[in-house]
């Protein structure tokens, strides 16, 4: 009887241009038969945006090096220059920076 644990991004969605919604599934198996499956979610956007006291903006690209290869691939494909520019405009338009 072998109990194994597998973790993988089993659902990756691009929502409203720049949101990459990632669902990470944790699968527990016994002799290759799935016993349980649980989900953890997080959402990625192209930049970490902050506004300085002089009202200037800094948009630091989101570090996705820790994401799985398929998440990185989808993020890189979805975050085109146009999408990145749109996100910067959106972030700077928010009431709270």
């Amino acid at each position: 009887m072998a109990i194994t644990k597998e973790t993988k991004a089993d659902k990756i969605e691009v929502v409203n241009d720049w949101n990459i919604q990632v669902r990470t599934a944790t699968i527990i198996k016994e002799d290759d038969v799935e016993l349980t499956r649980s989900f953890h979610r997080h959402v990625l956007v192209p930049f970490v945006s902050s506004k300085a006291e002089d009202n200037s903006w800094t948009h630091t690209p989101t570090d996705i090096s820790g994401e799985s290869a398929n998440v990185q691939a989808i993020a890189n494909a979805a975050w085109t220059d146009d999408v990145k520019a749109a996100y910067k405009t959106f972030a700077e338009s928010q009431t709270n920076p």
Partner: protein
Amino acid sequence: MATKNIVPNADGEGQLGTSSKSWAQGHIDSITGTIATAAQGSITSLGTLTSLAVSGGDVQISKSSTPTLRFTQTSATEYNAYIKLGGNDLEIRGSSGIMEFYNGGNNDGNSATLALSISSSQNATFAGTVTSNGQLKTGTATTVTPVSVADDFIIDPGVASVGMSIIGTGQCAIQFGDADDADVGGITYVHGSENDMIFTVNATNPLKIKSDGNVEVSDGDLVIGTAGHGINFSATSDGSGMSAEVFDDYEEGSWTPRVTDGTDVAQSNGSFTRGDYTKIGRLVHCSFQIVLTDLTSSGGGEVNGSIRMDGFPFANRNVQGAQSGGVIGAASHLNITAGHSVSLVMRINVAEADFSLSDSSGGTTDMQASEFSDDGQCKGTISYMTDS
């Protein structure tokens, strides 16, 4: 008296005589009465007739046992009843209560193959080929070529409405079996008071359509295989502004709440900091607990200014008015004034919510990092809509 035979006279015409003679050919204009021999009242054999035409009467064979009508070559196997229909070796044979129908062959009169056998108990067996591939087919049309895995029994009469009826008063079933289990799968209709349709897979009955219209899944999940589909409630009455009536998603899981100023992320106790979510349709309900250990990020950056919570499981809707509010039900170690309360407001089109503080007579203000604290804690819930 010596036996008299018909013998030719001098001019070739027949007359009774005693000599044993025969003609190369002969003709009898007509016969009235019975042809008989002197030794017996019936003709036992006419020898070989090259042609026999019967018009206006029957051919009757009357015999005490095994009456036989044979249409066969002398070399062919004989049967009690054997009718060979000329042309393409079409044969009907009968013997010992078994009726057999042959067809095919190569028109040599002796190579037809068995197509249908009807036993003495009326069971019918298609023993030969009905179609060219050994399939059983009713109807002569070929509206479409059946797929190979389902072409062994074909009903194709070439009309619009086609059906097959299974009539009974108890259980009527179509069974699927293999070498290990004769009824590992199947569809069964139970007549009588139940009137249920039961579907069997892997020797269990996980699905039943009951007589009252209810569908019962006794063991297993109802799996929606394509995103966007689900349970359609369009039959129910609608509220004004209704935009969708398909319940197409449900999900439970966890998420990790974080306190951030948008750049730096406060450090938290991973054993106690946790969020859970339930997504029902487009509604996302989140509960969370955050236990900070330091307002300085692991990278050394200080969280300051207005703070927000991120890490939510889904992005909020991208529409004005979607800035849902959340409740901080309990908090401790915050640097706020007694009587003030903390709340959350979702940002649109991202997975973040601003911390707000009810410390103003005019409403709320953005909560500042200085109003939290290195060991601040809070617990709460928030619900919002998502476009996914």
